[in-house]
Structures are given as C-alpha cells and as structure tokens.
C-alpha cells in the first residue's frame, strides 16, 4: 500500500492505496466521492473526468498514487456550497441531461473548457466534449446549455 497526501476540492486528504488502484477507484471506493462515474475504464467515455493541477484527465487512466502532492477537482467541487455553478443551473434548465450518468464528467470537462476558452464556437464545444459520451440526449441540449453558460459568464465578467 502506498501512502498518498493530496488535495481534493480544496480539502487536504490522505489515503492508502494499492499501486494498481486507479484514481477513480480511490475517489469512489476510498473517499466516498462517487460523483465521478466509471463508464468504460479505458478513457473512452469521459464519465470519470476530473482535473489534476488544472488539467482535464480521465481519472480511470490515472493511478491513485499519482495524486500525491496534486490538486484534484471533481464534480463535487463545482458548486459553491449550496449555490450551484451557473453551468449546473443551465444544465437543469435546458434538460441537458436525461439519465445523468455522463453529466458529472461533462460538467467537469465543460468547466475546464470555459476556463481556457470563455468564448467558444459551437464546433469548439463539440470537439472539446468529443471525449465525453452521452447516449441519451444527442448532445443538442448539452451544447445549447454550454453556449448559453459561456455567453452569460462573459456578460457577468
């Protein structure tokens, strides 16, 4: 077992993990952060998307041990306490989710997109989210929610 000290959603966290354990397994099984989902385990679906030191990654392709000294952000860290992030509000308003299992990964990926590209084109949004599979919506309402969030955030800033 490996001892790991890391920071998750702003909190200092310590855990022991098997050297083969993925960061996703650690988050879900050790730390109770089950918001990140395993849809494939091979980095193809994006449902486990988190950021590590600000970089968007599939947590199923990162080892738990690699979190040492890093800052991890998950879907659980997007809202500010009781207050939803505008992106979360827009997803509910636009019905940008049906079953909702891809939603955590899509929200993490989109937040990362908007931090880097506050004024994305529809094509940019579609390509940025091409690593996040959604089987329910056909993406239409997701893209609309993202575009409107981007516009509103630009207006507010």
């Amino acid at each position, binding site marked *: 077992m490996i001892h790991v000290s890391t920071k998750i959603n702003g909190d200092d966290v310590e855990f022991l993990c098997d050297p083969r354990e993925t960061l996703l397994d650690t988050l879900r099984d050790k730390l109770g*952060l089950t918001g990140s989902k395993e849809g494939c385990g091979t980095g193809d679906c994006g449902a486990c998307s988190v950021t590590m030191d600000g970089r968007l990654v599939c947590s199923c392709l990162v080892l738990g041990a690699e979190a040492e000294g890093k800052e991890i952000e998950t879907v659980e860290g997007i809202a500010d306490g009781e207050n939803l992030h505008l992106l*979360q509000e827009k997803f509910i308003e636009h019905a940008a989710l*049906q*079953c909702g299992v891809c939603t955590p990964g899509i929200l993490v990926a989109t937040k990362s997109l908007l931090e880097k590209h506050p004024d994305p084109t529809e094509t940019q949004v579609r390509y940025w989210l091409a690593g996040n599979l959604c089987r329910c919506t056909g993406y*239409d309402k997701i893209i609309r929610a993202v575009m409107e969030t981007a516009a509103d955030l630009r207006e507010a800033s």
Partner: protein
Amino acid sequence: MAFDDVKTDNFKVVGQRVKRPDGIDKVTGKAKFGADVVAPGMLFAAIIRSPHAHARIVKIDTTKAAALKGVKGFVTRADFATGLKGGNLDILENVMAGEKALYDGHAVAAVAATSALIARDAAKLVEVEYEILPHVTDVDKAMLADAPVIREGAADKSVPEGMHPNVVRYHESGHGDVEAGFAAADLVVEDSFLTEATHQGYIEPHACLAQLGKDNKGELWCCTQGHWNVQKLCAEMLGMETSQLRVTASEIGGGFGGKTAVFIEPVALALARKTNRPVKLVMSRSEVFRATGPTSSTSMDVKIGMTKDGIITAGEGTFRLQGGAFPGAPMEFTAMCAFAPYNLENVKQVGYDVLANRPKQAAYRAPGSPMAAFAVESVIDELCKKLDLDPIEVRLKNASKQGTKASFGPTWDRIGLVETLEAAQTHPHYSAPLKEGQGRGVSCGFWFNHGGETSVTLALSEDGTAQLSVGTPDIGGSRASMAQMAAEELGIPYDSVRATVADTATLGYNEVSHGSRVTYASGLATIKAARAAVKILCARAAAKWGIDEDAVVWEDGCAKPSGPNAGDFDPLPIEKLTRSMGRTGGPIVGHFEATPEGAGVSFATHIVDAEVDKETGQTKIVRYTVVQDAGKAINPTYVEGQFQGGAAQGIGWALNEEYIYGEDGRLQNAVFLDYRIPVASDLPMIDTVIVEVPNPGHPYGVRGVGETSICPPLAAIANAVSSAAGVRLKQLPMSPPRILAALDKQANG
C-alpha cells in the same frame, strides 16, 4: 378504456417546461446510481466468462483461485435453482452457463473477495476446461443445412417443417393477395438488406449490491428498468419466494431496453447467500458489450409494387433475425412494424427467429422496428426515385389513418401519421437547397407503444403537499412529468409534489419501464390516484359542510360547493382539509392499479441531409429534423429530448455502430474506442417538431414518445446517403469501407 373526465385544454402545470426534481442531485454528483452504494462487510465479485463462442464445459477448477488471500467464495450453475422451464430456464442459462458456453463472454462461474482487485485476480486463476464446438455467428449461415446446432429442441411449433433446428420461431401475417397486387403495379422493386447488431450503449454498466441470508430473505439494490421483474426473476433463479426479496431501483444511467433483463443480479445474490456477506457486482464495459443485450442482426428481403402515380399495390417482406443463443429475437415486431405506416390492400410479412453463438439479444428502443423501416423505406425511396415522385407525397397518398386496417390486423383508432407528414412537408428543412455532395432522405416510422401492469400511490401530507410513489424507474425525467400530472389534478404547485420511484415492498407489481409506457401508464395511474385522493378530499369537505359528496367539486386546489343550490360555503383549500385529516377519517391516500390497454400507437417522420465524401467514404450528417406525434406533451423539453436521443442513436446505428466477430467467433470490438457511438463532434443540432394528436386511451391524450424516434433514422439516413453517393446502400452500418465498396462496385460492375 373510457374516461369519466378527459381533459384536453386549460392545463396549468401540464405542458410547462418545468425543471426535473432530481436535477440538483445529478449535477452535483449526489445521485446514487447502481455502483454508488456500499454495505458494511461488503465483498466484491467478478465473473469468469467463456473465451469461446461455443464450447462444452468439461471442468471448473477453483483450487488456485481459492488459495488467494481475501477470496471468500465461488458460485457456478450448481448454486442456482433447478427445474426451471421455458423462458426462465433460458434466462438462467444466460446468467450462468450450464453444460455449454454458448457465446464469447458467457458467464461460467463467479467469485467474491474482499476487494475488486482480488476478485479480478481470482477470476483469472479459475481454470476452466472446455471442449470447443463448431460455432456460427451470422444469421444467414445459421439457417444453412450444415450450420452447427446451437441448442437441440429449442424450436416451437410455429416453425415450418424442414427448417434448420436453429430456426426457433416463425411469424406470418398480412392480408389481401400480394401476387395480384404486384401484377397491378407499374413498377415492382425487390431488394435485400443487412443490418449488424448494435448495443444500447448506456453509459452506466450494470451494477448491483445484494444481500441474501441462508433463510432466503434478501435485499437487492440495482440499476434496472424494472425492479419487480428483477425481483420475480431473481427469486426464480435462486429458488426463493418472490416476496422475500426486496428490490430497490437505483438511479439508472441509461437503459434503452437493455436493462429490462437480469444478468449479474442473480449471481450477486447467489454469492451473497454462499458467503453470508453483502456482495457488490459491477460489470466492466467489455462485459457489457460481450454479455448483455445487443440487438438482433438481420437479413431482410422486401418487395413493393407501385403505380406510376404513387399508390402502393402490394408489399411483401421476409425478415430473418438472429437473437443470440436463445429464442426471442423480435422478428414478429420487425414484421408487424414493416408496413404499419401504410394503408395496403395487399401485404404479407414473414419473420424467422434464428439462434447464433452470440449474446442473448435484449430489447433496444422499439425492438425490431428500425431495421424493418430501413428495408421497407429504402425500397419506397427507390420506387419514388425511379417513378420521379416526391417521397412525402407518396407517403401521404398511402398513409395509414383512423379506420385503416393495419398490415398486421387491427384497425387504427385516431393516429397522427398524416399530421407528421404534413408538418415535415411544410418544414423549411424539406425545401432547403442542398449543396454539392449532399443528399436528403425521409422516412416514416412506427411503434406500438404499451400499457402494462401499473400501480401508483399518492399520499397527502398534513401541509397539503403530495408524495407520489410510482414503480417505473425514471429513465429520462419521468418523475417530473408524473409530478406535473399529479399537481394538475390536485391543483397544487408542481414543486409541492415529490415523486419517488418506490421499491418492490411499497407498491403492487409494476411492469418495467419499456414500450414507451411510463408517461402513458404510470401517468394514467397517477391521474387516477390523484382523482381518488380528490374524491376523499371532497367527501371530507362535504361532511364538514353537512352536504352531499356529489355537491362538492374540486377546483384550483380547493373544495367548493358545486353551485348555489349546494350551499354557501367558503372554498376549503387542500391544506385545511389535510391538517385535520387525522380527526376527519384518517390519512388521505389515493391509489390506482390496472393494466391499461389504450397506449395509442405512435408515428414519426424524419428528414435528414447527409454529405458523403466519395474519396474517403466518410458521411457527415449536416441537418436533421424529427417530426413525431406525442399525443400530448406533458413536458415538451423532455419530449424533445426523447426525439433527439432516438435520432442520435439511429445515426450511430446507421453509420458506425456494429458488432464485429472474428472467424473464431469472438467479439473484436468490445470497447467504446472500437464500438463507436456518436460523439458531440459527429452530430448537428437536431431539430424537433412535436405533433399532438390526442390518444383516446389517456385522460390527457398522452402517447409514449421514447421509442418511435429511433424507427425512421436508419432508413432516412440510408436514403440521404444513397442519394448523396449516387448508389443504393443496402447494408448497415454505412461505414466508410462499405460506402467505398458500394461506389467501387457501381463503377466497376
């Protein structure tokens, strides 16, 4: 079913685009899906699966695996009930192989251990000795005389004599004289079509947490489209009483029909019973692909005759479906849906259910119908092209309407096909100019829709709010639409109704969330349950006022005297009646149980523009419009979502998705990288038009909308691609190699 009080206008809550009640949980990561719960002392399980397409299981040796630290127990077929028959035996055979492994990925044993890593390590150490048998995975080859027999004696009495034992069921329906019809045609087109198996592709793999004691009392948490069905089947497989197993449906991460069956749930229960510990079992993605329900693959022949002014004189179709190693391929649905949109004097359809060494097919959104539409609507398109006729005009000329005798027997009640065609015809998309290299396709589609066993309870709280318990897992926002219907009837705000998917201990039997039945059947039951509660509320007001119950009406959330003759009393709002309910007769609860049968069939018309790159064979969908009859849209936003989702899945099926088997009978693309479902950059926005032709079988006119949306896309896209490429595409998916091969064949003969 007749209704005492049908409501068609003046809706206050119904028709509003309300926010779903589970929205916040789902955008914050709080929602609990199948794999998101734990139990004290829980073990983790893994399944050992056959790497062979067809093999006799000679020996299973767990000695080495059992020696691994942390391993707590194994199960094989010997740990399940014996004496099952028919469909239940098939399900058990599929859950855990008996004497033979019937497909690559078939479960043969399972292990439980103290961690998921140990369970996976142990699974690799289980030694299974197989005697490999000849296999077949192709539907046409499985029907040939020299094909290996997959299961002896599996055919039922419907199969004509002389067929291969792999043909297990046969269907024939129609009316009139097709030969006379073809003779009366100015042009007859006959062609053959192939479609590959696709997977439902829900993003959440199957997952469950099981507890079962030696006393055969158990608890099961799982992601399923129907937990009463899981309860019934698991009890059968485990040899226990149904009522002793309580099943709770988790939030479900997509189903599309694929979570209407049981796969891992009986295995987790058997391991729990064996180890006397809670057991969690979660499938990997490759297990989902290899061992859970893909669709059937098909081989189809369709022949249609038409006059030069576009009247169809006869239609005939033969539909061969393989559904894996078990009977059940939905060939009768394929046959029945094939010509359902059209009013035909002469029609005949034949279906064959064929076994092959593949996983047991499971329902996928309008099971069997999309393939039928692909074949039939491709031939209609070819006729329109050859006769120089407008494809929507031709469909309008032949469209089924109220009073039409359907191709498979019934006479249609009020239906909305013509309305969808007219809306498509006048939609700006249909007349928009196309660019070089683009083609436009249209297609109609049909699905039956379904009612099914339904049980709903609505309990009023002391503050005048309502707790609504439904038994149909919410696969696309149905708690919102249920709460809207309850709020509408009670005359209270939408937010004052809390809709919950209740567990099996709480309500009577509820059929699974399938057949586009939830908004129809659970919605109908919700309305009826609310009306039952209102009746009690009115009775309490009548008692308070000392007047007849019949002299009280319910309006805007208040009991009121029905008129001046009833007496002069101030309206009694719901919360006044509920606050005193303990003293006026006890809790106020409405409930409704029935098997409603007025689901109301559904039709759609899709328009699609596709651009084909003739150099690479790559297709891009550039514009897509869905027009569908929803009867009455309870929540239009979620109705649009169903339209868009069905179209997107259809695009994947048409262009990319397929099960690829090697010569060895093994599935070669059991990961999302190789089984490519549409990603955001593959698709355009998907335009929607909601047509509302009320269903006479629902108090508000609702028709289910979930499934019909996947019926037209395969055909509409094939017609668009064929137009753009200048060659008829007859095999799905229309992947770049297939398009290049078709272009090459056309160029070189």
